[in-house]
């Protein structure tokens, strides 16, 4: 018999769960933020876990939402959700722990493989940009400074029209 995945509740776009299940998903800080026994998941985390069959999401009335319905729900508030999800998923599959970055934009903090979350800082700052999108010179300057001051490597994830991702290490150089 296969074990039923734990159930989280979605309110608006906030996904959370409590109890033993919350502890289990949290497992050493790999997913979400645990506050007073309540685990809050980022939209991309919820999507990833649902897609993996490790989580079920229901609305406050108990009606389940599948992966596709969740994507639709999140995209109403965040048009970049799909790009974010692709990057999140790709890095997770490669064994990295991925957390939300600061500020707006598709920015993540990424820990090295096997990192002890909570006792060491993230190693990379990853920002995503989809083919056809552009970004400001000022934005690049801002996150490059941010990465440098927090001693992280800045990685740019470029997503092509089929969702393929290529990564570039960005460094500001003084010539």
């Amino acid at each position, binding site marked *: 018999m296969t074990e039923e995945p734990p159930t989280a509740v979605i309110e608006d776009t906030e996904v959370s769960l409590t109890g033993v299940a919350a502890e289990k998903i949290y497992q050493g800080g790999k997913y979400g933020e645990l506050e007073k026994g309540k685990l809050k998941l980022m939209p991309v985390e919820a999507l990833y876990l649902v897609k993996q069959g490790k989580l079920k999401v229901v609305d406050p009335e108990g009606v389940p939402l599948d992966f596709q319905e969740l994507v639709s729900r999140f995209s109403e508030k965040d048009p970049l959700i799909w790009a974010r999800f692709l990057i999140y998923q790709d*890095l997770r599959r490669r064994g990295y722990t991925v957390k939300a970055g600061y500020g707006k934009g598709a920015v993540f903090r990424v820990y090295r493989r096997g990192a002890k979350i909570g006792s060491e800082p993230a190693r990379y700052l990853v920002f995503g940009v989809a083919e056809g999108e552009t970004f400001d010179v000022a934005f690049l300057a801002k996150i490059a400074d941010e990465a440098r001051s927090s001693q992280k490597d800045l990685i740019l994830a470029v997503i092509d029209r089929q969702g393929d991702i290529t990564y570039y290490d960005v*460094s500001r150089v003084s010539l």
Partner: protein
Amino acid sequence: MPKYHVSEARLLGSRIIVWNPEDSLFLYKNGFYGKPVGVSKPKTDEDLKTQLELSPLEALYLMEKQLLKVKDLRGKSISKKRLFEIAKKSHRRFNDLYLVYKDLREKGYVVRPGLKFGGDFAVYLMGPGIDHAPFIVHVIPQNEKIDPVEIVRAGRLTHTVRKKFVIATIDPQSKEVRYYMFMWWKP
């Protein structure tokens, strides 16, 4: 040869030509300015004793350094300001190109056109023919957005051509030139 030598160039349409072979020799040998007309890889002094074509960037920089006077065909002096206006019409990104060109020259690099390498500038420590691996600098203007295609190209060129490909931007507030390198990263 005198250490400080003011050369003269004539403006021909929007092209800038040095006619005196002594001036050509001086400018090329002191910082690799210009291109001797019809000589692709100058090796000897004889190769340089001909007309020298300066790019507008070079001419302006040399004028700023008081190493060059530019005149029209009748021998009337052309001001730096006037030349800048003419040059701006010849290249959409001229203003930003000049800021980067100047920054690199002031840092002591030899800065040559980089079009054939896929960027704006080929930058040498010593000079072409002396160090063989220039790095390539491409300028993204301050009021323009960065398209990821440019990053991909930069990363690709660094990876395959084994040349360093650097993107230069100008901070809109401070006007400070910033350089970024993009290297393909295996996750």
